[in-house]
């Protein structure tokens, strides 16, 4: 990892002076006196050396990344709450983490932009319009009853479970050069025309929801809540998957970001569930890949920062400072440029060029070439983003990544699917 070196006294003073001079004010300069290190537990996707470098410049805070996979984040949060100072985890994991009592509610009063956080989280709305609520919608788990509460409030309180870092609406990725027919529905995932060339995630809780989207798309069955199936619903969904597997529909399953990129870029698969930045990465390799909007809508996810219960004193202050910094715009713009969405849109907009904002967030054609945060060319001028504007995409969310009440049963059935 490319973390900045330990600062000398001189650079610290310079940093403090620069901090005083920047328009981003209101951060206590106390960190410059004696650097604080925050151990940041999360998935590699949200962890970037650039963000760590920038926060070091701005706040004098050292961010020490602990990159693990999604499941491992949850496992560590439950079993080793002292091994990190800041957690970046998905909202659906809260159902497991919070009852373990290892997180503290975050004081909304200490989050400067708390009331500017996207209404996706606070109200479950986009542009005043209600969005899909199935699964573990962040709205349902956003507020806690109190600082030490292990219960979700379901309505606005002063205590927040996670402050959003990034969120997105997932759909299928396709190889337009290798697929001859138009893809407009989730049901194409199991279309025999793509036999041996389809893939889904081997993350049971997410893979089964993709399968549920397919089942609903075929019109066979409508779920009460795709993110919280009953046992018969799980059986029905797994049966569909097993039939498809036995018929040779799938080429391989993927479990992490890079596996999905490789499967698609190498042409092993032509249609699969995919994450938006993975599509971007395939395209960056010069391979055509489309993040295909589908008529049934998207399966969304969101992750956010949480603070372990044990954190106190200067480290707790530092964690709040970091989160406030994160919401203040630079990081938001950085993440928006990767194709994610950031929590506070206004500050991110202030840190992006108007043509960038128009491309990423408003669904307009790019006026100039669109560059990624690392300077690589992502889209040439004239291109538009798959799925259109923020409002169009997040407004079309059908369900959210979830942990089901019948999770144990679901995992057993998933193992049956793999063994079939």
């Amino acid at each position, binding site marked *: 990892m490319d973390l900045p070196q330990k600062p000398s006294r001189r650079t610290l003073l310079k940093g403090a002076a620069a901090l005083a001079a920047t328009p981003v004010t209101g951060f206590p300069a106390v960190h410059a006196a004696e650097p604080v290190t925050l151990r940041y537990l999360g998935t590699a996707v949200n962890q970037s050396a650039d963000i760590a470098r920038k926060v070091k410049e701005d706040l004098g805070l050292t961010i020490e990344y602990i990159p693990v996979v999604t*499941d491992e984040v949850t496992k560590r949060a439950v079993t080793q709450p002292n091994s990190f100072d800041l957690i970046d985890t998905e909202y659906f994991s809260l159902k497991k983490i919070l009852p373990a009592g290892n997180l503290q509610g975050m004081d909304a009063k200490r989050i400067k932009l708390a009331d500017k956080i996207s209404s996706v989280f606070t109200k479950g709305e986009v542009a005043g319009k209600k969005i899909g609520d199935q699964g573990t919608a962040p709205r349902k788990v956003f507020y806690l009853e109190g600082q030490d509460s292990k219960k979700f409030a379901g309505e606005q309180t002063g205590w927040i479970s996670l402050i959003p870092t990034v969120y997105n609406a997932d759909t299928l990725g396709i190889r337009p050069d290798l697929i001859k027919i138009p893809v407009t529905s989730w049901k194409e995932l199991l279309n025999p025309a793509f036999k041996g060339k389809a893939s889904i995630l081997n993350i*049971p809780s997410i893979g089964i929801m993709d399968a549920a989207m397919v089942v609903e798309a075929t019109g066979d069955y409508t779920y009460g809540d795709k993110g919280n199936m009953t046992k018969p619903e799980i059986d029905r969904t797994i049966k569909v998957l097993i039939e498809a597997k036995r018929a040779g529909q799938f080429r391989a399953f993927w479990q992490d970001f890079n596996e999905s990129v490789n499967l698609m870029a*190498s042409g092993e698969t032509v249609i699969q569930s995919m994450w938006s930045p993975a599509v971007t990465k395939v395209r960056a390799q010069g391979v055509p890949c489309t993040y295909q909007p589908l008529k049934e809508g998207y399966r969304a996810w969101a992750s956010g920062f949480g603070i372990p219960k044990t954190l106190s004193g200067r480290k707790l202050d530092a964690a709040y400072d970091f989160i406030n910094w994160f919401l203040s715009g630079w990081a938001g713009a950085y993440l928006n440029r990767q194709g994610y969405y950031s929590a506070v849109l206004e500050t991110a907009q202030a840190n992006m060029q108007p043509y960038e904002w128009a491309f990423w967030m408003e669904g307009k054609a790019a006026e100039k070439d669109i560059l990624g945060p690392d300077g690589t060319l992502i889209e040439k001028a004239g291109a538009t983003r798959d799925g259109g504007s923020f409002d169009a995409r997040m407004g079309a969310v059908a369900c959210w990544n979830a942990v089901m009440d019948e999770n144990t049963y679901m995992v057993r059935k998933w193992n049956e699917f793999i*063994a079939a």
Partner: protein
Amino acid sequence: MTDLALPAAAPAAQTASPAASPRRRRRALAYLQAAPLALVFLVFLVVPLVLTGIVSLWEYNEYEIIPALTLQNYADVFDGCLSADLCTTVRTYLSTVKFVVLTLAITLPLGFAIAYFLAFHIRSGTVRMGLFLLCTIPFWTSNVIRMISWIPLLGRNGLVNDTLRTLGLIRAPIDGLLYSDFAVVLAFVHLDTVFMIVPIFNSLARIDRRLIEAARDGGASGAQILWNVILPLAKPGIAIGTIFVTTLVMGDFVTVGVMGGQQIASVGKVIQVQMSYLQFPAAAANAVVLLAAVLLMILGLTRMIDLRREL
């Protein structure tokens, strides 16, 4: 593993002199000598195993393990196994055992041939050691990297398919090269053959060459010498190599996952999925069943070959 540790202590005890007090002292000394290894086994093998056994009997939910005795985890493992249809666990074990058999069927003759070549055909000790080290070179990189390096080779548009197509041998790419049983077995052979070579080579190197000469003088043919002299004397090495390969393949989930495209069941994978969903007691129950299965297989092997006598 514990079986192998025992003989070390046994001969020390046998050599004790008949005199009572020095004998007792030597006996104490022998125990003392065995103590470090015993301690290591206790801390790193026995204690975790006992804990796994205990946890496998506990209840659990999404976020906590409840120390209340239950057999539900085992009931879940064998759920549906009494019906006519094959249950998940049996299917998974069949898939795993299939890979054990296939891998053994290739690594055993292959490992034996390489070890035989090294032990009997290379005269110079230096060259032999050099070649032997050559066998271990793949181990300078990690398991996963060695596996992943196969993917660009075997893929649908990989090197092998491309070459075959350019040569005009095939029209459509062969899909079965990657993400298939073939790929998994290939990777296992690649990763595990050396675990066969080393113990067999060790056994072969200790064979008294005069026995072979005697056999030849007695008029035995090459094949007869191999079958009646060398093979029986190499049995301990073969058994140890077989145990290595069996245990490695039985517990594996990474190779099966990466090369099988995550579509092939393995016992290790089931345990890993359960761990990642914080279902530790269920994973522990599966681990106990796996351990029992592996122990049974090893027991069967040691029935065929008395390792303690042969060593």
